[in-house]
């Protein structure tokens, strides 16, 4: 089994209104089979033994699906491995002796709470603005009443795969939440169940995205490059069409 030593530079910040800074830690004897978060667990265990405050970072499922983990690793949201959330990144992707810089997702819409933990509740509010089909529990017709072509269902699923982690925002030079917002608008625009409300939805969700302080999309495609679920920027194109439809077909 391979073991490596690392220097970590970790963003430490006591609270939202406190200044933060990078703090260096040396780690030895790290197994390359560890996940990145397990490596941070090891660091935290050492800090606790020394009576120091552990580094706070969000995580939950550790299977790349809950979207709770984040981190900007060496300048890249979710780190160097493509299509991989931080929790599924493993240490075999790093070299012995390497210095790794770990920072929070940074965006006006994602204020830091502590250390590497940020507030992503803006995403919930974007969905609240219209990311649903307005139907109550109960009266749904039989599930097979409306056939949906497999290709359409698959494409809707590609969009729906978004885990809401916010890497797209962290990667974007404009801190735009377009990929996140588009993924939901696109999913529901593709499916017949979403059609009755498509205009209202696009208008309201885009307006909320702006209100939260996220920037505009200017087609850098950095979002797609870091998305752990490979959500395509074609969905942003569809969102833009949906939005235009609300203006021109009032």
């Amino acid at each position: 089994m391979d073991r490596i030593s690392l220097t970590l530079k970790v963003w430490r910040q006591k609270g939202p209104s406190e200044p933060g800074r990078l703090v260096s830690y040396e780690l030895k004897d790290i197994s390359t089979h560890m996940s990145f978060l397990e490596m941070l667990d090891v660091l935290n265990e050492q800090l606790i033994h020394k009576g120091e405050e552990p580094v706070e970072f969000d995580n939950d499922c550790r299977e790349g699906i809950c979207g709770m983990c984040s981190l900007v690793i060496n300048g890249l949201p979710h780190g160097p491995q493509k299509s991989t959330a931080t929790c599924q990144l493993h240490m075999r992707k790093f070299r012995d002796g390497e210095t790794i810089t770990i920072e929070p997702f940074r965006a006006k819409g994602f204020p830091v709470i502590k250390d590497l933990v940020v507030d992503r509740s803006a995403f919930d509010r974007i969905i609240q603005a219209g990311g649903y089909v307005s139907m109550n529990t109960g009266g749904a017709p039989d599930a097979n009443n409306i056939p949906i072509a497999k290709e359409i269902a698959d494409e809707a699923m590609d969009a729906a795969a978004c885990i809401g982690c916010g890497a797209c925002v962290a990667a974007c030079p404009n801190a735009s939440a377009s990929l996140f917002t588009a993924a939901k608008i696109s999913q529901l625009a593709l499916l017949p169940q979403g059609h009755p409300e498509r205009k209202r939805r696009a208008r309201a969700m885009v307006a909320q995205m702006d209100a939260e302080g996220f920037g505009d999309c200017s087609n850098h495609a950095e979002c797609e490059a870091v998305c752990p679920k490979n959500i395509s920027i074609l969905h942003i194109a569809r969102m833009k069409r949906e939005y235009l439809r609300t203006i021109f077909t009032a």
Partner: protein
Amino acid sequence: MKLDAKIPDYPIQDIWDKHKFELKLVNPANKRKYNIIVVGTGLAGASAAASLAELGYNIKNFCIQDSPRRAHSIAAQGGINAAKNYPNDGDSIWRLFYDTVKGGDYRSREANVYRLAQVSNNIIDQCVAQGVPFAREYGGLLANRSFGGAQVSRTFYARGQTGQQLLLGAYSSLMRQVKLGKVKIFARREMLELVLVDGKARGIVVRNLIDGKIERYEADAVVLATGGYGNVYYLSTNAKNSNVTASWRCHKKGAAFANPCFTQIHPTCIPVSGDYQSKLTLMSESLRNDGRVWVPKKKGDTRRPSEIPEDERDYYLERKYPSFGNLVPRDVASRNAKYVCDEGRGVGETGLAVYLDFADAIKRLGRKAIEDKYGNLFEMYERITGDNPYETPMRIYPAVHYTMGGLWVDYNLMSTIPGLFVLGEANFSDHGANRLGASALMQGLADGYFIIPYTIGNYLTSEELPKIDTEHAAFSQAEAEVDERVKKLLSIDGKKTVTEIHRELGKIMWDYVGMSRTKEGLEKALEEIPKLRDEFWQNVKIPADANNLNKNLEFAGRVADFLELAELMARDALNREESCGGHFREEHQTAEGEAKRNDKDFSYVAAWEYTGDGKTPKLHKEPLEFKYVKLTQRSYK
């Protein structure tokens, strides 16, 4: 404490319909006068909160994560069952009911399971209407697959992300109700106490996980949907934040805990690679459709798998179970993996793994076919282990996955505390001693969408619920208890970390209250657990303070509760002198080594009453009657 399941006496097909008719309704104009607390935003909690809000109730909905969408349900992969019979292969409500009771090894209530099968079809309709992108056939209709050894194809799925899609469906309905002002979300909050007024559940005390402030919330009823307690084993497939605290606090306030020893161990997980391991990743059960399980015939054989010739391999499942082979049920597959590893024939660095080999399937069907079926799973495996399963066999080992036990509830999903309802994995209701694949999602959504909206109304109209506020003495007392606990945890300043003690607890549980249990082992666990608990309260170290985000402090509280639950699990396992479902007692097996039930003495739900710290809990028995399903001994030979 009296257990009354309150199952109306009608023919099984009519119970739920008749009961719904007999339940009192709340006048539509009055619904907005009621406040309901829902703790949890997984499939059970989110579906309940949204549906109750749609009816007009005012909902306060709590979760630990930063967003309700991140509840552990999001991680479910395989699918959700329903009795639609779209494939025309002979499925029916009756068959789903029958399979579930049988799969649970006859330790669940017939009436509950029948209702579950009945509403299963509504769930699929509901989810499709929300825009859940289930897999479809080319003709545009919904696709089904067979799952977990079922003989019919009744599982609906959305790639390997069914839980995610179902949860996002429920979450979207929930977000709509937030917008409409009917639900208020309290994220990053942890419920730490239940508040009882006149013996009824009337509120909760939570810790705000960001600033550490203790907060009080009042309601007319409390709905708990806080998930399962598999993390008592330290390593499990559960999310890191999954815990028993909410259920345990309620248990200590008077809610009976049912069948705590019934845990499910899933056979196909990625094995532990070292001490630092923080969780285990499930590899879908579907892999066993094409993969062959084997270990070397020789002990301590360290050759690479490709160097071990065919006749020196033991395909032990195929050998022992010629008719089911690699597709034996979860518990049988898990136990046999343990046995071969105990014999010293396990593979990999730790010797705690067996091979799952796709070489034959690739030869037979071609690499492309395997890639189409399992591509994403193979990728995930490679990401985690660094090995390529197209070229070398996967290594797998069983891991704790699901807990069938939970708070006892009656047919209305109410616990032994009036006004405290329990849904989803947190209750014990429908899976008996073993849960079938794709049935947890079904149960969580059944509870939340289609059961609680009816039963809670009946409670609210039938009870005197005088207005209270959070200044009530009961709240102050509950808050003081929470405060004291937090202070105590922080004051210990010992030498061991929370994780170190949790890991030790996990080892005790895995060794003695795991896949295969014995009287001696369980007695040993009952000695070891209290010792470890004492050590925890004298020697744990938690730096930093309580007025801030402090995950280590959160985990400390949860581990403290696991240390109490663990003892109850061992006690329950010791009491149950039989083998059934996930509970295997080595003393009780057939000549062929299969689980041997004792229907005469143990056909009951074991519901434990808390009687005070350091006191032996009291066992209450709810007898199980089987009028419709014939009890048989399972055989997979």
